[in-house]
């Protein structure tokens, strides 16, 4: 790979000399807060030419914020950024580009109607006489870059319909044509197949061989060890580890990533589970999930864990009747629910707090009061009209019980903070006094204090005899408040763990299939709370299914 094209070496500046060059980019002690949420406390990173540098950490560790600072999208509140030893301030993506920093996002935003070559050169197309675009030169240059990267991609085809992998290649080609010396790849492999990952790795190695510094973010540790020479681990907005990767093993990185106070674990003991409220049998939706059987009893919190994309949310949506399913049954208190009917599910006493509260959980333009009352219209109706006084009373009651902080009940719900918005969604369902409450990522994007309140609320509900089915990517949360943990992988239930037996490592092994040698890696997604971890077996070498108290489920292909 070392012998690169003449043109290429001109484009990609000098390979690292034997003397060992200094870092091309240094970010020191960067901090960034969004309102009350401190997304990044002490973000530091050093990138060397010719090196692939891994950045790993849980979700919420501050990786994305750091990437967006490098991309010029966010301006840090504190800290300094040095490129080639000179201090720079990036006031926008254009300045980052000019400084030689290119960012390849997980899903690039191309111009679908323009050709591949134009996507690479938009605004900088090679010109001929009369300032006209020289299409042939543009295509030749694109072809040369693809040749240099060793990929086959026609520069004259339009971008519409390109696979994600090819779209990334277009972006990488663009970065090369811009003579970028720092290439940041934000979870590029998340949506790629194994073959595409291999091709991407070849491309990345080519890039670094020609002297570019690559920052590679991934949730898959085996990729980090396969590709990178140096690694930075972030936790809670800080850099906690930064060294060359030789000599490190996966468990070192996991410890650095997780390294949290385990004392925060199991909170209150729950009462004994009561009657069977939700009974799902062999629920299957072709190509999405298969043979999902689960139960939720009164007073129980059951967590559905797994990687994003493992089918957790889809199962929840099918249970509630938003999505259809092909086979299986959903019973609530012994009554079978009609498939595809949220109204039926609601009538049977099921509530559903969706993952995306802004898009699915709330009507952002309506008031706090109206949002809370939205699911209780039936009760508030009198002769076909909504009684404003009753609506107000209901909303005020729940707002007080959930300690929602708001200005006036008539304010639009969009004025509340994320945590309080989430409480409004919860209040909406609690107003109906559900028997079963399904919550999808109840604490995503919520600050720590409110998060604790939401946890407390869910525990309180369980104590009051509600059955809660919770989907969560945050393992500490799962371990803290649930009684049983079901782990999904690739649309199937892989394990059921009792809270007493479960550990983060164990859930991760089941979710990623790492415990069983020879099984394919996790599907294309971010893991669980970003605990991202794999590459690791549990201490006793047993698979999750063999755990005491764990129930085995039909295995993976």
């Amino acid at each position, binding site marked *: 790979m070392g012998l*690169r094209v003449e043109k*290429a070496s001109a484009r990609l500046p000098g390979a690292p000399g034997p003397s060992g060059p200094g870092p091309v980019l240094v970010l020191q002690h960067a901090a960034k807060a969004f309102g009350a949420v401190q997304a990044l406390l002490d973000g530091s990173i050093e990138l060397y030419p010719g090196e692939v540098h891994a950045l790993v950490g849980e979700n919420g560790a501050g990786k994305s914020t750091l990437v967006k600072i490098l991309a010029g999208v966010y301006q840090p509140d504190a800290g300094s950024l040095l490129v080639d030893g000179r201090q720079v301030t990036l006031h926008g993506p254009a300045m980052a580009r000019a400084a030689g920093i290119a960012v390849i996002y997980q899903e690039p*935003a191309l111009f679908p109607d323009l050709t*591949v070559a134009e996507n690479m050169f938009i605004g900088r197309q090679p010109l001929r006489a009369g300032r006209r*675009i020289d299409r042939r030169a543009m295509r030749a240059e694109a072809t*040369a870059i693809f040749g240099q990267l060793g990929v086959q991609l026609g*520069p004259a085809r339009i971008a519409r319909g390109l696979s994600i992998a*090819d779209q990334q290649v277009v972006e990488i080609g663009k970065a090369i044509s811009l003579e970028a010396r720092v290439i940041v790849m934000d979870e590029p492999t998340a949506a790629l197949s194994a073959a*595409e990952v291999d091709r991407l790795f070849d491309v990345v190695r080519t890039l670094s061989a020609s002297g570019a510094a690559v920052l590679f973010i991934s949730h898959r540790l085996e990729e980090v060890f396969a590709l990178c020479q140096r690694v930075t681990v972030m936790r809670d907005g800080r850099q906690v580890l930064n060294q060359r990767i030789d000599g490190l093993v996966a468990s070192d990185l996991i410890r650095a990533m997780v390294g949290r106070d385990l004392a925060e674990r199991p909170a209150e003991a729950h009462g004994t589970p009561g009657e069977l409220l939700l009974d799902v049998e062999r629920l299957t939706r072709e190509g999405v999930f298969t043979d999902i059987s689960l139960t939720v009893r009164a007073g129980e919190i059951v967590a559905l864990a797994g990687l994003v994309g493992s089918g957790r949310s889809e199962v929840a949506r099918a249970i509630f009747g938003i999505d259809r399913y092909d086979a299986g049954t959903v019973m609530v208190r012994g009554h079978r629910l009609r498939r595809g009917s949220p109204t039926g599910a609601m009538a049977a006493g099921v509530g559903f707090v969706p993952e995306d509260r802004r898009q699915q959980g709330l009507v952002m333009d309506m008031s706090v009061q109206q949002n809370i009352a939205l699911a209780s219209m039936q009760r508030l109706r009198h002769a076909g009209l909504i009684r404003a006084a009753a609506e107000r009373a209901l909303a005020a009651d729940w707002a007080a019980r959930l300690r929602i902080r708001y200005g006036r009940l008539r304010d639009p719900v969009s004025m509340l903070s994320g945590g309080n918005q989430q409480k409004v969604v919860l209040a909406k369902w609690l107003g109906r006094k559900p028997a079963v409450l399904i919550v999808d990522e109840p604490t995503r994007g919520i600050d720590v204090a409110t998060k604790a309140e939401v946890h407390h609320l869910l525990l309180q509900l369980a104590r009051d005899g509600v059955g809660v089915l919770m989907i969560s990517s945050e393992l500490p949360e799962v371990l803290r408040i649930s009684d049983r943990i079901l782990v999904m992988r690739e649309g199937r239930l892989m394990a059921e763990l009792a809270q007493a037996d479960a550990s983060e490592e164990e859930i991760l092994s089941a979710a990623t299939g790492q415990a069983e040698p020879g099984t394919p890696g996790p599907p294309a997604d971010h893991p669980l709370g970003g605990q991202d971890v794999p590459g690791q077996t549990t201490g006793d070498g047993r698979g999750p299914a063999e755990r005491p108290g764990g129930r085995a489920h039909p295995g993976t292909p």
Partner: protein
Amino acid sequence: MSTTLVSRSERPPAPAGTGARKLTERAFRIRESGIIVVLVVFVAITASIQPRFLNITNIQFILVNTTVFALLAVGETMVVISRNYDLSVGSVLGLSAYLSASQFGQHQGIPIVAVFGIGLGIGVACGAANGIMVSVGRVPSLVVTLATLYIVRGLDILIVGGKEVVASSLPAAFLNIPRATVLGIPDLAIVIAFAVAVGAYYLRSFRSGRELYAIGSNPEAARLAGIPTGRRVFVAFVCSGAIAGVAGVLWAAQYGTVDSTAGTGYELQVISAVVVGGVAIFGGSGSAVGAALGALLLNTISSALYVLGISPFWDQAIWGFLLLLAITIDRLISVRLTAALRVRGARHE
């Protein structure tokens, strides 16, 4: 490995890419050749029923009638490609037609070029007003130009009142502009064809032209790519306005009589022509040539119905039908194309 990397342009293009390119090229050619086919079939059928349709006077009539629409369609194409709409072109045309033509009555012996200049100026002013509101005010263009459609028309009615410019007040040279021919082809049609070609070439081969496609294709990505989206959209509106201004003067020359209703409803006819001509209604693709051909097709149909003695009611119904057809074809092509490209580019499916 590195040896294969050295050659660049000689290297045979990727098979997947070539296949896909052929496919896209064919699809785009079809978009324009499709209109030509429809046009030819339509003319053939009409002529077989009523041979008078093909006589030179009638063809000249169709071509001259098309010029105003074809011209407007080029300006509208620029706007639509950038995912905007200009609904004010009809009103701008009307205002420009009256104000420019009335100059002949007010200033004896004013040169025709100066009158065109006045029309152009009016158009530029209206287009700039639209452009500022859309790009600086960030108001959706549909709303902005709907407002200016009424404002400019209102202004026109205020100025014109019950008056009108009559043909007898216009110099013969001016009235002859649409009537002059070279080898039987109207001069005006040649000039307009040239203008369409220039517009198409600009959109195809200049950075700022391509950037209009980029903006229409993915506005957010365009901003991130550092394209001055506001400025480009502003210029597109100015061009559309300027073209409408000039078209107003031509309209006056063609009809001779100008009152306050000149150009009423043209905006929708022009947008129809643009869409029938294969310009994607949500921006990002299409060509000025296609749009001009769309205008030609619609005018030919009107004329054919007239020649065949069919009620003008059918005129509008057929326009509407063609519009639906064009949009359906547009959808079908893009769905098919996406599917085909995905299969050809597939590596991970």
